């Protein structure tokens, strides 16, 4: 009996481990075009898969294009970006309601480099130069918008 319980336990742990490691990527069409559900699944739930990989590997997996981003900083430089894919209200950025992912880098980007990028290519509109700038950064952490679900719930707004 003990042997059966032990075997079952090992199997359950193994299934969970395999599940988090190999959760398959799903296309936007599998979510009927719902960007929030798409990003939550592919990025939030599969975050461990992307940790240690490059930004290029993550972005190349996603089959929708970003629309813009905003930088995340501390007193030493740029520590990450919020990469926006869809505004809740058309053409209005909202950190609370929009569909975006937080990407934190292993290495802080020096101020000067980021400053030049921001001045030449405003962050409100994602361009190939932004991709080139961030593509080799190693991902420390990645997640979907922390606020959106509770914000929509509090405001009684639909998930669209």
């Amino acid at each position, binding site marked *: 009996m003990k042997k059966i319980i032990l075997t079952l336990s090992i199997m359950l742990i193994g299934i969970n481990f395999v599940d988090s490691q190999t959760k398959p990527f799903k296309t936007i069409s599998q979510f009927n075009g719902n960007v929030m559900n798409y990003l939550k699944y592919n990025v939030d739930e599969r975050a461990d898969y992307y940790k240690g990989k490059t930004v290029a590997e993550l972005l190349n997996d996603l089959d929708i294009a970003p629309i813009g981003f905003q930088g995340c900083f501390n*007193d030493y430089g740029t520590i990450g970006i919020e990469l926006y894919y869809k505004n809740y209200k058309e053409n209005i950025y909202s950190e609370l309601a929009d569909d975006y992912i937080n990407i934190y880098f292993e290495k802080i980007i020096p101020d000067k480099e980021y400053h030049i990028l921001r001045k030449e290519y405003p962050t409100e509109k994602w361009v190939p130069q932004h991709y080139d700038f961030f593509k080799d950064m190693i991902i420390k952490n990645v997640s979907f918008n922390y606020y959106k679900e*509770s*914000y929509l719930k509090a405001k009684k707004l639909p998930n669209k």
Partner: protein
Amino acid sequence: MAIIPDPDYKTSSSNFENSNSYLKRKNDFSGLVMYYSLNDEFVNGWKYENGTVVDNLIKSDGNGTSSNVRKNSKIIHIADIIEVTTCYLYSVQIVGYDDISYHEKCETEYYFSGGGTSTDSGGGGGSSGSYDYDANSATGGGGSSSSGSTTPPTIKPNEDCDPVAIANGDSISKILKTYDSSSAYYKISEYFNQLIGYASSSSVEWGMVINYTDGEFYAYNKEGNYVYSDQKSNEIALGYCNNTSILCHTHPTGKTSSPSPSDAGTLVYSYNKGATKIFANVIIAANGSQYVIYVNDRTAFNDFCNNSLNSGFYQETSDGRFATGTTWSNDYLTVYKNLQNQGYSDDVCNSYALSYVLDKYNTGMKISERDNNNNAFNEQNTEEDRSKTIFTTTTTYTPTKCD
């Protein structure tokens, strides 16, 4: 150091030179004790009567300094102006010649009795026991006098308060207190109260960031955390972004309560990084006091940040002060020392010196303070008073606070 006895004391005490030294004065000593740096520049001086300090000395702008061996001095006391004539003995020897010629040169300097506010027992070295800026100035002997056990002077009430500053203080207070709904993304008040708890109980700095977007204030989530620490006692690398409006962090027990220059620099730095809506930096001290540096004049602040000449404003030293040698640093230290010499605490000297710099350079930023979570933030100002005499200009700084 020079010990210059009053003529009467010199007559009555033939052995005065052995009885009075750098750290010790005979309890009946009357005269002047003057401290000089290693470069022979006057640092400070005290007037004694019967072993007690009755006045401090302020040097006039009159004559230059000298660099020879001090031989002797005599005093002529004219009302509150003290004339000190110092004579120097020097020798001249020309290479190739055996003869040595000896010369004497005398210089006269003027000092003013400084108002007699000090009750210190005098003595060499030492500051008020707070941040020792004299350690950075390499002035050698002397040092500033402290009031020791005397009560620090009070802050002068300011009756002419800026209504914009009052409104800004009230806005910050409201944001910190009222945004506390059941929604997870708000909770500013809850997190802020956590910081108040950490300020008094933790030995390291903690912080949080408040963002603003689409008409809402909310706590910023940095990698899954709303309140966090780098586990360092004197710094925290807060995370912020373009939407960031307010930064908050603690100053733990044993650290200066009031904001450091780097706390003002952070606002300029974050603006230049893209956080163009940055509004305030709140400091929660272990003693319960809360300070806020805030943007009171948006146009002036933006202009200050956009001026490349001001890029050094946030390149502070490791102890959070302005970079050494900058005009901001020089002014900050001048006001700090002036307030310190008046007997103000380190917290007062620090925040009012910073307040002075913020106003002088038209940064658009102000500092306000409150002593607990329920009170309003009160604006701080530092008044500058220059009094001119025939010999010198004396500047006094007075801290004022709105009620």
